[in-house]
Protein backbone atom coordinates (compact mmCIF):
# COMPACT_ATOMS: atom_id res chain seq x y z
CA UNK A 1 0.00 0.00 0.00
CA UNK A 2 1.22 3.43 -0.86
CA UNK A 3 1.04 5.79 2.04
CA UNK A 4 -1.38 8.57 1.33
CA UNK A 5 -1.20 12.25 1.76
CA UNK A 6 -1.78 11.82 5.46
CA UNK A 7 0.80 12.07 8.22
CA UNK A 8 -0.13 9.11 10.35
CA UNK A 9 2.26 9.88 13.23
CA UNK A 10 4.88 7.30 14.23
CA UNK A 11 3.82 7.13 17.88
CA UNK A 12 0.17 6.71 16.93
CA UNK A 13 1.05 3.87 14.56
CA UNK A 14 2.85 1.92 17.29
CA UNK A 15 0.08 2.73 19.75
CA UNK A 16 -2.43 1.07 17.45
CA UNK A 17 -0.83 -2.28 18.08
CA UNK A 18 -1.24 -1.80 21.84
CA UNK A 19 -4.86 -0.77 21.31
CA UNK A 20 -5.43 -4.02 19.43
CA UNK A 21 -5.25 -5.98 22.70
CA UNK A 22 -2.96 -8.61 24.21
CA UNK A 23 -1.65 -9.90 20.87
CA UNK A 24 -0.99 -6.33 19.81
CA UNK A 25 1.09 -5.54 22.87
CA UNK A 26 3.55 -8.23 21.81
CA UNK A 27 3.61 -6.80 18.27
CA UNK A 28 4.23 -3.30 19.65
CA UNK A 29 7.03 -4.61 21.86
CA UNK A 30 8.70 -6.41 18.93
CA UNK A 31 8.38 -3.33 16.71
CA UNK A 32 9.77 -1.15 19.49
CA UNK A 33 12.73 -3.48 19.95
CA UNK A 34 13.35 -3.60 16.20
CA UNK A 35 13.28 0.16 16.08
CA UNK A 36 15.74 0.43 18.95
CA UNK A 37 18.01 -2.15 17.28
CA UNK A 38 17.81 -0.18 14.02
CA UNK A 39 18.61 3.03 15.85
CA UNK A 40 21.59 1.40 17.59
CA UNK A 41 22.93 0.02 14.29
CA UNK A 42 22.60 3.47 12.77
CA UNK A 43 24.35 5.10 15.72
CA UNK A 44 27.18 2.51 15.55
CA UNK A 45 27.59 3.10 11.82
CA UNK A 46 27.65 6.83 12.34
CA UNK A 47 30.27 6.58 15.10
CA UNK A 48 32.45 4.36 12.83
CA UNK A 49 32.41 7.12 10.26
CA UNK A 50 32.90 9.88 12.78
CA UNK A 51 35.72 8.16 14.70
CA UNK A 52 38.99 9.64 13.53
CA UNK A 53 40.62 6.77 11.73
CA UNK A 54 44.24 6.04 12.32
CA UNK A 55 45.98 8.33 9.89
CA UNK A 56 47.33 6.33 6.97
CA UNK A 57 50.65 8.05 7.15
CA UNK A 58 51.27 7.39 10.84
Amino acid at each position, binding site marked *: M*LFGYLDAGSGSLILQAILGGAAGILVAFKAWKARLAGKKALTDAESDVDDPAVPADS
Partner: protein
Amino acid sequence: MHLSDPGSFRDPASHIVLDGERIIRLLDERGLRAWEALSQTSFFKTATNDGRLIDADPLDSAPAGASGALEHPRVPFISYPYEWTFSMLKDAALLQLDLLMEALAEGLTIKDATPYNIQFVSGRPVFIDIGSFESYSPGEPWIGYRQFTRQFLFPLLLRARLGIPFQPWLRGDPEGPTAADMRRLLGFWEHLKPSILLHVALQARMEQRMSGTAVRDELKTAGFSAELILSNARKLRRLVEGLQWSGSGDGWIEYESCRHVGRDREAKSEFLRRAISAHSPHRVMDLGANDGHFSTLAAESGAVAIAVDGDEPVLDALYRNGTPVSIVVSDLTNPSPSQGWAELERPGLTERAQPDLVIAYGLIHHLIYTASIPPPVVLDWLAGFRCPAVVEFVAPGDEMVAKLTANKTEAELHPGRSQGEFESELARRFETLDTRTLGDGTRVLYRVQPLTG
Protein backbone atom coordinates in the same frame (compact mmCIF):
# COMPACT_ATOMS: atom_id res chain seq x y z
CA MET B 1 -15.69 21.57 -19.46
CA HIS B 2 -14.55 20.33 -16.07
CA LEU B 3 -13.93 22.67 -13.15
CA SER B 4 -11.87 21.38 -10.26
CA ASP B 5 -13.68 21.31 -6.95
CA PRO B 6 -11.56 23.64 -4.79
CA GLY B 7 -12.19 21.38 -1.80
CA SER B 8 -10.91 18.18 -3.43
CA PHE B 9 -7.22 18.11 -4.23
CA ARG B 10 -5.33 16.39 -1.42
CA ASP B 11 -5.57 12.82 -2.67
CA PRO B 12 -3.47 12.32 -5.83
CA ALA B 13 -5.36 9.09 -6.63
CA SER B 14 -8.86 10.52 -6.73
CA HIS B 15 -10.43 13.96 -6.91
CA ILE B 16 -13.70 15.65 -7.75
CA VAL B 17 -14.39 17.89 -10.74
CA LEU B 18 -17.61 19.69 -11.58
CA ASP B 19 -19.19 19.36 -15.00
CA GLY B 20 -22.08 21.81 -14.81
CA GLU B 21 -24.41 20.24 -12.27
CA ARG B 22 -22.68 16.85 -12.54
CA ILE B 23 -20.22 15.63 -9.90
CA ILE B 24 -17.41 13.61 -11.48
CA ARG B 25 -14.62 11.78 -9.66
CA LEU B 26 -11.43 11.37 -11.67
CA LEU B 27 -9.17 8.43 -10.82
CA ASP B 28 -5.52 7.79 -11.59
CA GLU B 29 -4.19 4.22 -12.06
CA ARG B 30 -3.99 3.61 -8.33
CA GLY B 31 -7.44 5.12 -7.77
CA LEU B 32 -8.91 2.98 -10.53
CA ARG B 33 -7.50 -0.21 -8.99
CA ALA B 34 -8.95 0.80 -5.63
CA TRP B 35 -12.36 1.46 -7.20
CA GLU B 36 -12.34 -1.91 -8.96
CA ALA B 37 -11.59 -3.66 -5.67
CA LEU B 38 -14.29 -1.68 -3.83
CA SER B 39 -17.00 -2.20 -6.44
CA GLN B 40 -16.63 -5.97 -6.15
CA THR B 41 -17.28 -6.11 -2.40
CA SER B 42 -20.63 -6.96 -0.91
CA PHE B 43 -20.41 -4.22 1.74
CA PHE B 44 -20.19 -1.60 -1.04
CA LYS B 45 -23.54 -2.76 -2.44
CA THR B 46 -25.12 -2.96 1.01
CA ALA B 47 -23.83 0.43 2.15
CA THR B 48 -24.87 2.25 -1.05
CA ASN B 49 -28.30 0.58 -0.94
CA ASP B 50 -28.94 1.62 2.65
CA GLY B 51 -27.69 5.16 1.99
CA ARG B 52 -24.56 5.07 4.19
CA LEU B 53 -22.23 5.33 1.20
CA ILE B 54 -22.77 7.63 -1.75
CA ASP B 55 -23.69 6.08 -5.10
CA ALA B 56 -21.00 5.89 -7.76
CA ASP B 57 -21.61 5.11 -11.43
CA PRO B 58 -18.54 4.42 -13.57
CA LEU B 59 -18.41 6.46 -16.78
CA ASP B 60 -17.75 4.66 -20.06
CA SER B 61 -14.88 6.94 -20.94
CA ALA B 62 -12.58 8.94 -18.69
CA PRO B 63 -11.51 12.48 -19.59
CA ALA B 64 -7.96 12.96 -20.90
CA GLY B 65 -5.35 12.51 -18.20
CA ALA B 66 -7.51 10.25 -16.01
CA SER B 67 -7.50 6.44 -15.88
CA GLY B 68 -11.12 6.22 -14.82
CA ALA B 69 -14.10 8.34 -13.83
CA LEU B 70 -17.17 7.95 -11.63
CA GLU B 71 -20.29 10.05 -11.35
CA HIS B 72 -21.83 10.78 -7.94
CA PRO B 73 -25.23 12.25 -7.13
CA ARG B 74 -25.06 15.86 -5.94
CA VAL B 75 -25.26 16.36 -2.18
CA PRO B 76 -28.03 18.96 -1.74
CA PHE B 77 -26.16 21.01 0.87
CA ILE B 78 -22.56 20.71 2.06
CA SER B 79 -21.94 21.34 5.75
CA TYR B 80 -18.76 21.10 7.79
CA PRO B 81 -18.04 19.49 11.17
CA TYR B 82 -17.72 22.90 12.80
CA GLU B 83 -21.38 23.44 11.88
CA TRP B 84 -22.62 20.10 13.25
CA THR B 85 -24.17 19.27 16.59
CA PHE B 86 -22.69 16.76 19.02
CA SER B 87 -25.00 13.92 17.89
CA MET B 88 -24.18 14.60 14.23
CA LEU B 89 -20.43 14.30 14.83
CA LYS B 90 -21.01 11.21 16.95
CA ASP B 91 -23.10 9.51 14.23
CA ALA B 92 -20.47 10.44 11.66
CA ALA B 93 -17.77 8.85 13.87
CA LEU B 94 -19.79 5.64 14.20
CA LEU B 95 -20.32 5.52 10.42
CA GLN B 96 -16.58 5.97 9.84
CA LEU B 97 -15.77 3.06 12.17
CA ASP B 98 -18.53 0.81 10.83
CA LEU B 99 -17.38 1.26 7.24
CA LEU B 100 -13.76 0.64 8.25
CA MET B 101 -14.70 -2.63 9.92
CA GLU B 102 -16.89 -3.73 7.00
CA ALA B 103 -14.11 -2.84 4.54
CA LEU B 104 -11.45 -4.76 6.50
CA ALA B 105 -13.68 -7.84 6.58
CA GLU B 106 -13.44 -7.89 2.77
CA GLY B 107 -9.78 -7.04 2.38
CA LEU B 108 -10.06 -3.24 2.03
CA THR B 109 -9.25 -0.35 4.30
CA ILE B 110 -10.05 3.37 4.55
CA LYS B 111 -6.86 5.35 4.16
CA ASP B 112 -7.98 8.41 6.13
CA ALA B 113 -10.53 9.23 8.82
CA THR B 114 -11.90 12.73 8.52
CA PRO B 115 -15.46 13.99 9.02
CA TYR B 116 -15.00 16.06 5.85
CA ASN B 117 -15.63 12.76 4.03
CA ILE B 118 -19.12 12.61 5.51
CA GLN B 119 -22.15 14.71 4.68
CA PHE B 120 -25.72 14.74 5.96
CA VAL B 121 -28.44 13.96 3.44
CA SER B 122 -32.08 13.89 4.61
CA GLY B 123 -30.86 13.94 8.18
CA ARG B 124 -28.55 10.93 7.92
CA PRO B 125 -24.76 10.72 7.59
CA VAL B 126 -23.47 9.56 4.20
CA PHE B 127 -19.83 8.72 3.45
CA ILE B 128 -19.02 10.57 0.23
CA ASP B 129 -15.35 9.87 -0.44
CA ILE B 130 -15.28 6.66 -2.46
CA GLY B 131 -11.60 7.41 -3.13
CA SER B 132 -10.74 6.75 0.53
CA PHE B 133 -11.18 2.99 0.12
CA GLU B 134 -8.28 0.90 -1.07
CA SER B 135 -7.00 -2.66 -0.80
CA TYR B 136 -5.54 -3.55 2.56
CA SER B 137 -1.94 -4.63 2.39
CA PRO B 138 -1.20 -7.23 5.12
CA GLY B 139 0.89 -5.88 7.96
CA GLU B 140 -0.05 -2.23 7.42
CA PRO B 141 -1.49 -0.24 10.35
CA TRP B 142 -4.57 1.99 10.12
CA ILE B 143 -3.19 5.24 8.75
CA GLY B 144 -6.28 7.17 9.79
CA TYR B 145 -6.10 6.36 13.51
CA ARG B 146 -4.48 9.60 14.64
CA GLN B 147 -6.75 11.60 12.35
CA PHE B 148 -9.78 9.78 13.77
CA THR B 149 -8.82 10.77 17.29
CA ARG B 150 -8.14 14.41 16.40
CA GLN B 151 -11.16 15.04 14.21
CA PHE B 152 -13.80 12.77 15.77
CA LEU B 153 -12.90 11.39 19.21
CA PHE B 154 -11.24 14.40 20.82
CA PRO B 155 -13.90 16.93 19.73
CA LEU B 156 -16.57 14.58 21.11
CA LEU B 157 -14.59 14.23 24.36
CA LEU B 158 -14.35 18.01 24.61
CA ARG B 159 -18.15 18.22 24.71
CA ALA B 160 -18.99 15.03 26.59
CA ARG B 161 -16.30 15.15 29.27
CA LEU B 162 -15.51 18.85 29.56
CA GLY B 163 -18.71 20.56 28.34
CA ILE B 164 -16.67 22.60 25.83
CA PRO B 165 -18.25 23.11 22.38
CA PHE B 166 -16.02 21.60 19.69
CA GLN B 167 -17.25 23.82 16.84
CA PRO B 168 -15.05 26.86 17.56
CA TRP B 169 -11.99 24.62 17.84
CA LEU B 170 -12.66 22.80 14.55
CA ARG B 171 -13.45 26.08 12.82
CA GLY B 172 -10.16 27.52 14.03
CA ASP B 173 -8.16 24.36 13.37
CA PRO B 174 -9.84 21.78 11.13
CA GLU B 175 -7.16 19.19 12.04
CA GLY B 176 -8.66 19.14 15.56
CA PRO B 177 -7.04 19.07 19.00
CA THR B 178 -3.86 17.02 19.39
CA ALA B 179 -3.41 14.33 22.01
CA ALA B 180 -1.09 16.72 23.82
CA ASP B 181 -3.81 19.41 23.84
CA MET B 182 -6.29 16.94 25.29
CA ARG B 183 -3.82 15.74 27.91
CA ARG B 184 -3.50 19.32 29.16
CA LEU B 185 -7.26 19.88 29.13
CA LEU B 186 -8.46 16.65 30.79
CA GLY B 187 -8.12 16.52 34.55
CA PHE B 188 -6.38 13.98 36.80
CA TRP B 189 -9.49 11.83 37.37
CA GLU B 190 -10.18 11.57 33.64
CA HIS B 191 -6.69 10.19 33.15
CA LEU B 192 -7.54 7.26 35.39
CA LYS B 193 -9.99 6.01 32.76
CA PRO B 194 -8.30 3.42 30.49
CA SER B 195 -9.66 4.97 27.28
CA ILE B 196 -8.26 8.41 28.17
CA LEU B 197 -5.00 6.90 29.37
CA LEU B 198 -4.47 5.12 26.04
CA HIS B 199 -5.94 7.41 23.37
CA VAL B 200 -4.89 10.67 25.01
CA ALA B 201 -2.04 10.33 27.50
CA LEU B 202 -0.16 7.45 25.91
CA GLN B 203 -0.67 8.76 22.37
CA ALA B 204 0.63 12.19 23.42
CA ARG B 205 3.67 10.60 25.05
CA MET B 206 4.44 8.31 22.10
CA GLU B 207 3.96 11.08 19.57
CA GLN B 208 6.43 13.20 21.47
CA ARG B 209 8.98 10.38 21.83
CA MET B 210 8.78 9.01 18.29
CA SER B 211 8.22 12.03 16.11
CA GLY B 212 9.66 11.54 12.63
CA THR B 213 10.82 7.92 13.02
CA ALA B 214 9.85 5.24 10.50
CA VAL B 215 7.95 2.37 12.13
CA ARG B 216 5.86 0.78 9.38
CA ASP B 217 8.36 -1.87 8.39
CA GLU B 218 9.01 -2.75 12.03
CA LEU B 219 5.29 -3.18 12.66
CA LYS B 220 4.90 -5.38 9.62
CA THR B 221 7.85 -7.56 10.59
CA ALA B 222 6.55 -7.78 14.15
CA GLY B 223 3.30 -9.30 12.86
CA PHE B 224 0.83 -6.40 12.71
CA SER B 225 -2.46 -7.54 11.20
CA ALA B 226 -5.96 -6.37 10.24
CA GLU B 227 -7.25 -8.15 13.34
CA LEU B 228 -5.51 -5.55 15.51
CA ILE B 229 -7.18 -2.70 13.58
CA LEU B 230 -10.55 -4.43 13.91
CA SER B 231 -10.07 -4.90 17.63
CA ASN B 232 -9.09 -1.24 18.05
CA ALA B 233 -12.04 -0.08 15.91
CA ARG B 234 -14.51 -2.21 17.90
CA LYS B 235 -13.28 -0.70 21.17
CA LEU B 236 -13.33 2.82 19.72
CA ARG B 237 -16.90 2.23 18.60
CA ARG B 238 -17.96 1.26 22.13
CA LEU B 239 -16.15 4.32 23.49
CA VAL B 240 -17.81 6.73 21.04
CA GLU B 241 -21.23 5.12 21.49
CA GLY B 242 -20.96 5.66 25.23
CA LEU B 243 -20.22 9.39 24.95
CA GLN B 244 -23.26 11.42 25.93
CA TRP B 245 -24.09 15.10 26.03
CA SER B 246 -27.54 16.06 27.17
CA GLY B 247 -27.26 19.71 26.20
CA SER B 248 -29.48 20.54 29.14
CA GLY B 249 -29.03 23.90 30.78
CA ASP B 250 -27.51 25.41 27.66
CA GLY B 251 -29.06 27.64 25.05
CA TRP B 252 -32.76 28.21 24.44
CA ILE B 253 -34.00 24.64 24.87
CA GLU B 254 -37.26 25.90 26.41
CA TYR B 255 -38.00 28.01 23.34
CA GLU B 256 -41.45 26.51 22.85
CA SER B 257 -42.55 27.62 26.30
CA CYS B 258 -42.09 31.32 25.38
CA ARG B 259 -45.57 32.84 25.26
CA HIS B 260 -45.34 34.39 21.79
CA VAL B 261 -44.06 31.18 20.20
CA GLY B 262 -47.21 29.13 20.76
CA ARG B 263 -49.47 32.13 20.18
CA ASP B 264 -48.02 33.07 16.78
CA ARG B 265 -46.81 29.73 15.44
CA GLU B 266 -49.85 28.83 13.33
CA ALA B 267 -50.16 32.35 11.86
CA LYS B 268 -46.46 32.35 10.95
CA SER B 269 -46.77 28.87 9.43
CA GLU B 270 -49.71 29.97 7.30
CA PHE B 271 -47.79 33.08 6.16
CA LEU B 272 -44.82 30.90 5.20
CA ARG B 273 -47.04 28.44 3.33
CA ARG B 274 -48.36 31.33 1.26
CA ALA B 275 -44.78 32.40 0.49
CA ILE B 276 -43.80 28.87 -0.52
CA SER B 277 -46.88 28.61 -2.71
CA ALA B 278 -46.09 31.97 -4.38
CA HIS B 279 -42.36 31.41 -5.01
CA SER B 280 -41.98 27.58 -5.20
CA PRO B 281 -38.46 27.74 -3.70
CA HIS B 282 -35.91 24.97 -4.20
CA ARG B 283 -33.62 26.07 -1.37
CA VAL B 284 -34.90 27.70 1.78
CA MET B 285 -32.55 29.14 4.38
CA ASP B 286 -34.10 29.53 7.83
CA LEU B 287 -32.08 32.14 9.71
CA GLY B 288 -32.44 31.76 13.46
CA ALA B 289 -34.28 28.48 12.91
CA ASN B 290 -34.40 27.48 16.57
CA ASP B 291 -36.40 24.22 16.88
CA GLY B 292 -36.70 23.97 13.09
CA HIS B 293 -40.50 24.17 12.92
CA PHE B 294 -40.50 26.47 9.87
CA SER B 295 -37.56 24.73 8.18
CA THR B 296 -39.51 21.50 8.49
CA LEU B 297 -42.51 23.12 6.78
CA ALA B 298 -40.21 24.18 3.95
CA ALA B 299 -38.71 20.68 3.70
CA GLU B 300 -42.21 19.19 3.55
CA SER B 301 -42.87 21.32 0.46
CA GLY B 302 -39.98 19.50 -1.25
CA ALA B 303 -37.37 22.25 -0.87
CA VAL B 304 -33.87 21.76 0.53
CA ALA B 305 -34.28 23.43 3.92
CA ILE B 306 -31.24 24.75 5.77
CA ALA B 307 -31.79 25.55 9.45
CA VAL B 308 -29.17 27.93 10.84
CA ASP B 309 -28.97 28.76 14.51
CA GLY B 310 -26.31 29.33 17.14
CA ASP B 311 -28.21 27.24 19.68
CA GLU B 312 -26.68 23.76 19.58
CA PRO B 313 -29.02 22.08 22.12
CA VAL B 314 -32.20 22.80 20.15
CA LEU B 315 -30.58 21.85 16.85
CA ASP B 316 -29.25 18.64 18.39
CA ALA B 317 -32.77 17.79 19.57
CA LEU B 318 -34.02 18.51 16.03
CA TYR B 319 -31.38 16.18 14.56
CA ARG B 320 -32.15 13.39 17.03
CA ASN B 321 -35.81 13.58 16.03
CA GLY B 322 -34.82 12.44 12.53
CA THR B 323 -35.43 15.69 10.65
CA PRO B 324 -34.86 15.88 6.88
CA VAL B 325 -33.68 19.49 7.41
CA SER B 326 -30.00 20.39 6.88
CA ILE B 327 -28.64 21.63 10.19
CA VAL B 328 -26.04 24.35 10.66
CA VAL B 329 -24.80 25.47 14.08
CA SER B 330 -23.60 28.99 13.45
CA ASP B 331 -23.86 32.39 15.07
CA LEU B 332 -25.45 34.59 12.40
CA THR B 333 -23.41 37.59 13.53
CA ASN B 334 -20.29 35.55 12.74
CA PRO B 335 -21.23 32.88 10.15
CA SER B 336 -18.76 30.30 8.83
CA PRO B 337 -16.34 32.14 6.53
CA SER B 338 -14.53 30.91 3.42
CA GLN B 339 -11.42 29.17 4.67
CA GLY B 340 -8.87 26.44 4.11
CA TRP B 341 -6.35 26.45 1.29
CA ALA B 342 -6.41 29.74 -0.63
CA GLU B 343 -9.65 30.53 1.24
CA LEU B 344 -11.42 28.37 -1.34
CA GLU B 345 -11.30 24.90 0.16
CA ARG B 346 -14.34 25.35 2.38
CA PRO B 347 -16.66 28.11 1.12
CA GLY B 348 -18.54 30.35 3.55
CA LEU B 349 -22.06 29.56 4.66
CA THR B 350 -23.96 31.95 2.37
CA GLU B 351 -22.00 30.84 -0.69
CA ARG B 352 -22.92 27.22 0.00
CA ALA B 353 -26.54 27.86 0.89
CA GLN B 354 -27.60 29.83 -2.24
CA PRO B 355 -31.20 30.17 -1.04
CA ASP B 356 -34.13 31.24 -3.19
CA LEU B 357 -36.25 31.97 -0.11
CA VAL B 358 -35.08 33.24 3.27
CA ILE B 359 -37.00 32.90 6.53
CA ALA B 360 -36.12 35.52 9.17
CA TYR B 361 -38.73 34.86 11.86
CA GLY B 362 -37.97 35.94 15.41
CA LEU B 363 -34.51 37.06 14.38
CA ILE B 364 -33.98 40.68 13.55
CA HIS B 365 -34.84 42.08 17.00
CA HIS B 366 -32.06 39.86 18.41
CA LEU B 367 -29.66 41.30 15.83
CA ILE B 368 -30.76 44.87 16.54
CA TYR B 369 -31.05 44.75 20.34
CA THR B 370 -28.58 42.04 21.38
CA ALA B 371 -25.91 42.22 18.68
CA SER B 372 -26.29 46.01 18.26
CA ILE B 373 -26.55 45.90 14.48
CA PRO B 374 -28.35 49.00 13.13
CA PRO B 375 -31.75 48.19 11.50
CA PRO B 376 -30.69 49.44 8.00
CA VAL B 377 -27.57 47.22 8.15
CA VAL B 378 -29.71 44.19 9.02
CA LEU B 379 -31.92 44.95 6.00
CA ASP B 380 -28.87 45.39 3.72
CA TRP B 381 -27.75 41.92 4.80
CA LEU B 382 -31.17 40.38 4.06
CA ALA B 383 -31.26 42.11 0.66
CA GLY B 384 -27.83 40.61 -0.03
CA PHE B 385 -29.36 37.15 -0.35
CA ARG B 386 -31.04 38.44 -3.55
CA CYS B 387 -34.17 36.39 -3.04
CA PRO B 388 -37.61 36.78 -1.47
CA ALA B 389 -37.78 36.69 2.32
CA VAL B 390 -40.37 36.38 5.06
CA VAL B 391 -39.37 38.71 7.88
CA GLU B 392 -40.81 39.22 11.35
CA PHE B 393 -40.58 42.74 12.76
CA VAL B 394 -40.83 43.13 16.54
CA ALA B 395 -41.77 46.60 17.80
CA PRO B 396 -40.05 48.31 20.74
CA GLY B 397 -43.12 47.68 22.98
CA ASP B 398 -42.91 43.87 22.69
CA GLU B 399 -42.22 41.90 25.89
CA MET B 400 -39.18 40.16 24.36
CA VAL B 401 -37.69 43.52 23.37
CA ALA B 402 -38.24 44.68 26.95
CA LYS B 403 -36.22 41.66 28.15
CA LEU B 404 -33.45 42.24 25.62
CA THR B 405 -33.14 45.91 26.55
CA ALA B 406 -33.59 45.52 30.32
CA ASN B 407 -30.02 46.62 30.97
CA LYS B 408 -29.58 49.08 28.11
CA THR B 409 -30.19 52.82 28.05
CA GLU B 410 -31.72 54.63 25.07
CA ALA B 411 -28.30 56.11 24.23
CA GLU B 412 -26.90 52.59 23.85
CA LEU B 413 -29.48 51.63 21.21
CA HIS B 414 -29.42 52.43 17.50
CA PRO B 415 -32.12 54.78 16.18
CA GLY B 416 -34.71 53.71 13.59
CA ARG B 417 -36.36 50.92 15.59
CA SER B 418 -40.02 51.93 15.26
CA GLN B 419 -42.37 50.17 12.82
CA GLY B 420 -42.70 53.31 10.67
CA GLU B 421 -38.93 53.74 10.38
CA PHE B 422 -38.49 50.01 9.71
CA GLU B 423 -41.07 50.06 6.91
CA SER B 424 -39.44 53.12 5.40
CA GLU B 425 -36.03 51.38 5.33
CA LEU B 426 -37.67 48.20 4.03
CA ALA B 427 -39.23 50.12 1.10
CA ARG B 428 -35.78 51.42 0.06
CA ARG B 429 -34.57 47.84 -0.53
CA PHE B 430 -37.61 45.64 -1.06
CA GLU B 431 -41.04 45.45 -2.56
CA THR B 432 -43.53 44.23 0.07
CA LEU B 433 -45.72 41.46 -1.33
CA ASP B 434 -47.65 40.39 1.75
CA THR B 435 -48.03 41.48 5.36
CA ARG B 436 -49.77 40.31 8.54
CA THR B 437 -49.95 41.69 12.07
CA LEU B 438 -49.71 39.12 14.84
CA GLY B 439 -51.21 38.82 18.33
CA ASP B 440 -51.25 42.05 20.28
CA GLY B 441 -49.88 44.11 17.39
CA THR B 442 -46.22 44.30 18.41
CA ARG B 443 -45.14 41.74 15.84
CA VAL B 444 -45.63 42.09 12.09
CA LEU B 445 -44.76 39.69 9.26
CA TYR B 446 -43.63 40.91 5.84
CA ARG B 447 -43.02 38.95 2.65
CA VAL B 448 -40.59 40.99 0.63
CA GLN B 449 -38.65 40.77 -2.61
CA PRO B 450 -35.45 42.77 -3.28
CA LEU B 451 -35.85 45.68 -5.67
CA THR B 452 -34.07 45.05 -8.94
CA GLY B 453 -31.58 47.42 -10.53
